[in-house]
């Protein structure tokens, strides 16, 4: 669906006319990301990150498929096979660094995409389904990234797998059996490595499927915008092509410059040195830490150091870590403010920035060794995290008085001058 003033696809070339009759793919593209899709004219750069996330997914799939042609998912040779890729495969070093840093780039982009949603209230009706699918994507991304990190079978791969699968053993009654079943053994080994490889190959395509649903459901209400005021008239919009293809193209260029600078000049910056040591089940690394994009959640996991009534500390940590993401599912119903955009919500806006700082600081603590004072700091930060989503957000709308909204996007852009509106 689209707005009534959307331009119509009119093929002129006989081949296109023929194709439109038999397989209207060009029509589909025209209506999805072409001139046939009207988009708010006032989107800022925060709206570039969805397309960038899609591009990251593409990078990961393409580099991943080629890597899989050379990788061996056998615990005895997995480490050496990655080194074989780095040394003997033509441009293998590029593939591997592009893939490893591609994961980092993907998460960086998606975090900005998600926080854009927090600030602009993008999760609110009518876009709650887009948001829910987004959270599903994020969970799938985390699973994919975790299993991918295990594949090179270095020390951090092995011990990360040990710690994360160990979380399942915290589940009462069935935990131990579940843990063994998931790993295919009592500790990570060949069985675990093989299934992780298989799933790591599969999941990106599942993500791709959910991304298609995500964008499908986006195209029903269309994008929101920085004012949060819905599109009312044609002058509120511009056709996606050429306006946003041009803007997204420029954004993609900037992204690629940053990404390639890392891939070519600092490819190990975001990795952990210990993963260049082959997995050794007999030697625990001094600090087991996941990749940076898991740090905030890892800090929450480790913040629970005491049993709470009958609930063991470890189980509390696991519950809290998963809840920290699962609360996002409920945002559309927890935040009751009729106003979407943080620009017009004086209190919500302040709490948003506190949350940003809180999550960055949690990330810092999650990457630090599990000792004081980091644990105490993460405890305070984690308290804010939960209060933010579960207590503050639900009541802040009753406490704040939103600032006056513009009547329309056009008014926000052009000012209250009727003449300007008419001729825009």
């Amino acid at each position: 669906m689209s707005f009534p003033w959307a331009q119509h696809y009119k093929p002129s070339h006989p081949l296109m006319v023929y194709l439109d009759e038999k397989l209207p793919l060009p029509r589909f593209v025209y209506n999805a990301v072409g001139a046939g899709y009207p988009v708010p004219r006032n989107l800022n750069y925060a709206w570039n990150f969805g397309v960038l996330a899609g591009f990251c997914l593409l990078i990961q799939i393409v580099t991943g498929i080629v890597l899989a042609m050379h990788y061996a998912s056998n615990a005895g040779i997995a480490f050496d096979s990655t080194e074989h890729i780095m040394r003997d495969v033509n441009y293998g070093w590029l593939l591997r660094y592009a893939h490893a840093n591609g994961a980092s780039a993907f998460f960086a982009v998606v975090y900005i995409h998600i926080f854009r949603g927090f600030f602009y209230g993008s999760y609110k009706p009518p876009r709650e389904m887009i948001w829910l699918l987004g959270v599903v994507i994020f969970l799938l991304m985390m699973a994919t990234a975790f299993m991918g990190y295990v594949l090179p079978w270095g020390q951090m791969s092995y011990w990360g797998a040990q710690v994360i699968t160990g979380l399942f053993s915290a589940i009462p009654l069935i935990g131990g059996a579940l843990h063994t079943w998931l790993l295919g053994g009592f500790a990570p080994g060949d069985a675990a490595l093989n299934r992780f490889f298989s799933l790591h190959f599969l999941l990106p395509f599942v993500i791709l499927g959910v991304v298609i649903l995500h964008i499908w459901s986006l195209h029903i209400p269309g994008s929101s915008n920085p004012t949060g005021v819905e599109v009312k008239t044609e002058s509120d919009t511009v056709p996606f092509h050429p306006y946003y293809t041009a803007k997204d193209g420029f954004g993609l260029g900037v992204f690629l410059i940053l990404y390639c600078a890392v891939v070519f000049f600092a490819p190990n910056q975001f990795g952990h040195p210990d993963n260049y040591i082959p997995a050794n089940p007999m030697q625990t690394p001094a600090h087991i830490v996941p990749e940076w994009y898991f740090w905030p959640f890892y800090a929450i996991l480790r913040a629970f150091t005491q049993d709470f009534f009958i609930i063991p500390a470890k189980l509390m940590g696991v519950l809290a870590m998963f809840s920290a993401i699962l609360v996002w599912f409920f945002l559309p119903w927890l935040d009751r403010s009729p106003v979407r955009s943080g620009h017009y919500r004086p209190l919500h806006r302040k709490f948003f920035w506190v949350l940003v700082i809180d999550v960055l600081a949690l990330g810092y603590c999650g990457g630090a060794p599990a000792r004081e004072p980091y644990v105490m700091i993460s405890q305070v930060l984690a308290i804010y995290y939960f209060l933010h989503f579960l207590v503050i957000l639900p009541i802040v709308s009753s406490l704040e008085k939103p600032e006056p909204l513009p009547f329309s996007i056009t008014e926000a852009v052009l000012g209250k001058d009727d003449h300007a509106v008419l001729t825009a």
Partner: protein
Amino acid sequence: MIRIFSILVGLFFSAALLFSFGKGAYSYISEPPAATAVNVYHKEPKELALASDGPLGKFDMQQVQRGFQVYTEVCSNCHMLHQVAFRDLKAIGYNDDEVKAIAAKHKIPHYDPKTGEVKNDNGMPTDHFPPVVYGGQGTPPDLSLIAKAREGGPAYIYSVLTGYQDQPADLLAKFPDSKTPDGLHYNPYFANLNIAMPPPLTSDGQVSYKDGTKPTVDQMAQDVAAFLVWTAEPKLENRHQAGWAVLIFLIFATGLAYMAYQNVWAGKKH
């Protein structure tokens, strides 16, 4: 309804965290973590500048070859170089005959398909550096990737090699339990201060360089660190070169994209 439930869940997690925090803070105040010999005496790696540093970095092949000589004459008694094949040495300036000669100095088990026997005979360029048997204390790690497997990389290797010293007297005065155990060696750059590796580079002139460089301990340590950067990242030069080509292209293309973007939006207020 959902909001009441959510507030309760929020308070539940907060209470559990507050409880953990309270207990942690109490024991932090009542028994502040004691200083250990490691957190007082451990040192960060020294500065080391290598030709391969930075985005324009290239290997100094002379130095890498000297480092290879140090590895061969000293380190290879204890350390493997499993990821490196003899043929790879061509990349640091050895020709085919030299590579063959280097390979032939190593005994490597080869499977003979005609007889079904496995025989230890001379290494070939396609072989990798063979395993090393070590009987002393500790486990010498494989050195192929060591420059990427330690925080600080080459600077760390250089610091460990040149960082051996007697255990400071004030350390023993402050931490009487932290005396370096027998068979280990005090080295403030090593994570736990006591390393099992006996000082490998002990005297100037331990190897004799053919290119006239003076083989001081410091020089040998730098050279072997440079060599280990190469073993860890043999494609470093290709990466830097390709990187510049890619970046220059991208900056150009992004400039065009920016102009296209400005052009498309010209006159459209947004």
